């Protein structure tokens, strides 16, 4: 059993990290009342920027390259998401539609530019991806050490840390209170002197930043290059994590980790004696079935932020 845990937990951690970042972005956006189907596109943008920057500056920046790459990707993700913010906040667009446009745009633009700049549909592999490390001392603790602290990516811990920070921001600070109020009852927020549009812009931009971060972390820990198939569905899984986690940062963290665990369990199972006889197909679909069962079984009904998806128009009720 411990053996199994020791092999699934580290994998779950790196598998989940990009999902955690992105899902947190989704939480911010949707908490402010802006539905974000565009998470997938934001991840694509992040992955694209992370890889291109890494390839371009690896020689100049050396070991710092991946870190600076994800910072740049975060930044570009934030800028890119302004499109969604303008559409859904200022232009009163249907937010789902605008999110779908983001997905098309990111993938189209990413691959188009890749072809334009590299003359082919996929980039080289980066020479400076993230590497995992053992955390000194902690990794020597018996049992726990190898599970959580050996061969882990710093980014995975940053992801978990971000979830806690996001929780703190959303639930403990004035900013968070305002952001959530805008997603529940924008008019109430407005009459309390909160600028609904500004809050929503900020929230969407945060989601862009985190989506970009998630995408670039995926690219630099897992894929190593960029092509049309680098991000395929991770954004949608993150969206599912937002809802599964009941629009709560720690819930989203839990949901993303759950998904990572289920995925890694499905791979590991083949080497676990009593599961080895289970036909592969069941292991393959296990993560998805488990997620549905978890929702149906004990998570149940989740209430979205009340004003989620509704454009706020000043002066109407």
């Amino acid at each position, binding site marked *: 059993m411990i053996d199994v845990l020791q092999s699934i937990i580290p994998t779950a951690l790196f598998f989940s990290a990009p999902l955690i970042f992105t899902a947190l972005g989704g939480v911010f956006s949707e908490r402010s009342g802006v539905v974000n189907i565009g998470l997938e596109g934001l991840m694509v943008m992040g992955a694209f920027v992370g890889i291109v920057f890494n390839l371009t500056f690896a020689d100049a920046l050396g070991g710092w390259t991946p870190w600076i790459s994800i910072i740049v990707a975060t930044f570009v993700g934030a800028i890119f998401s302004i499109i969604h913010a303008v559409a859904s906040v200022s232009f009163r*667009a249907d937010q789902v539609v605008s999110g*779908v*446009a983001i997905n*098309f745009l990111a993938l189209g633009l990413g691959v188009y530019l890749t072809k*334009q700049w590299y003359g082919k549909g996929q980039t080289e592999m980066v020479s400076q991806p993230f590497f995992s490390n053992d955390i000194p001392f902690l990794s020597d603790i018996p049992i726990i050490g190898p599970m959580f602290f050996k061969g882990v990516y710093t980014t995975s811990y940053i992801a978990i840390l971000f979830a806690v920070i996001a929780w703190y921001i959303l639930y403990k600070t004035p900013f968070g209170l305002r952001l959530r109020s805008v997603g529940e009852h924008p008019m109430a927020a407005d009459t309390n002197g909160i600028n609904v549009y500004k809050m929503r812009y900020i929230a969407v931009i945060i989601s862009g930043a985190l989506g970009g971060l998630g995408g670039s972390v995926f690219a630099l820990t897992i894929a190593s290059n960029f092509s049309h198939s680098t991000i395929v569905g991770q954004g949608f899984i993150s969206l*599912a994590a937002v809802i599964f986690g009941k629009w709560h940062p720690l819930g989203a963290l839990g949901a993303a980790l759950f998904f990572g665990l289920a995925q890694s369990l499905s791979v590991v199972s083949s080497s676990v004696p009593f599961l080895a006889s289970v036909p592969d197909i069941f292991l*393959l679909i296990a993560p998805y079935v488990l997620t549905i069962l978890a*929702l149906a079984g004990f998570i149940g*009904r989740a209430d979205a932020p009340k004003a989620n998806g509704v454009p706020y128009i000043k002066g109407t009720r």
Partner: protein
Amino acid sequence: MSSSHRLFSVLIPIISVLLGLIAGAVIMLLSGYNPITGYAALWRGAFGDAYTIGETIRRSTPYILSGLAVAFAFRANLFNIGAEGQVIVGWLAAVWVGISVEAPMVIHLPLAILAAALAGALWGFIPGLLKAKLGVHEVIVTIMMNYIALYSTNEIIRNVLTDHKTTTESIHESASMASEWLGSITFFSRLHYGILLALFIAIIIWFLIDRTTIGYELKAVGFNPHASKYAGMNVSKNIILAMVISGALGGLAGAMEGLGTYGNISVMSGFSNIGFDGIAVALLGANTPLGVVIAAFLFGTLKEGAGEMPTGAGIPTELVDVIIAIIIFFVASSYIIRWALLRFKGGKSK
């Protein structure tokens, strides 16, 4: 007021498409291509001759149905991201019946189509049931169902329909919608009778939504489940029904591929995207059947025409995705176009 409303609902999509094409031209210019050559290639790729016209229509066919699937659910305030999975299982079911049943065409073809609809309906039923009875959000369940559909279908193709092969044998003639005649007038394109079915179903769905008590209930439940319950409607039943019909439409989109275009099904290493594109088609079409049909043709045209762009003008096909994105973006932002139009009109009259 209402006549200007009608005018806007026609003008806005047209303006959006124009803006998308202009943006595409700008991108081409910026990357050193000639937009005229580019669009000429796109046009040739979609309408250059009988063959490409046939292929364009063929490509639009499943989009009509997957777009309807998403749109139908939307009308009941449900977001069916699972059209993709429904397309896949529909495709599988259609081919399965197409291969394993022997019957005259009048029985076989409808049976295969029905099987596709049923399989899709089942795939919609599960998220619908979970939503109605347990309040589980349909978005997550449909996303998960997509993956389950993909992997299970692959498994069935490999181990049930074939003996560890990647493609099934072809369906019997009696279950095929392919048409030699349609092929012959379009120079061997794969245009098939599915287009007639798709258009027919679009009309049925329009009728269902706007002219029947079922549609009346579905929309009411979508708008306001509380009031609907007060009015004696069965809210759970309607949610499930909406997802079932939506799923069936997705399944039918799969049948277009299984019985029309390909006549078989292959192991897929990724999604077909017919369902995902259906989301965009539905939204472009403002979730109305007529809108969906038009959007499906627009989508089909752009996607089919894109194929000619690299060979014809050296431009990467992805440019078309960018153009589509911009069109969707402007359609979504119709408010701002309306505003600009009003300003323009106001400015002129003053």
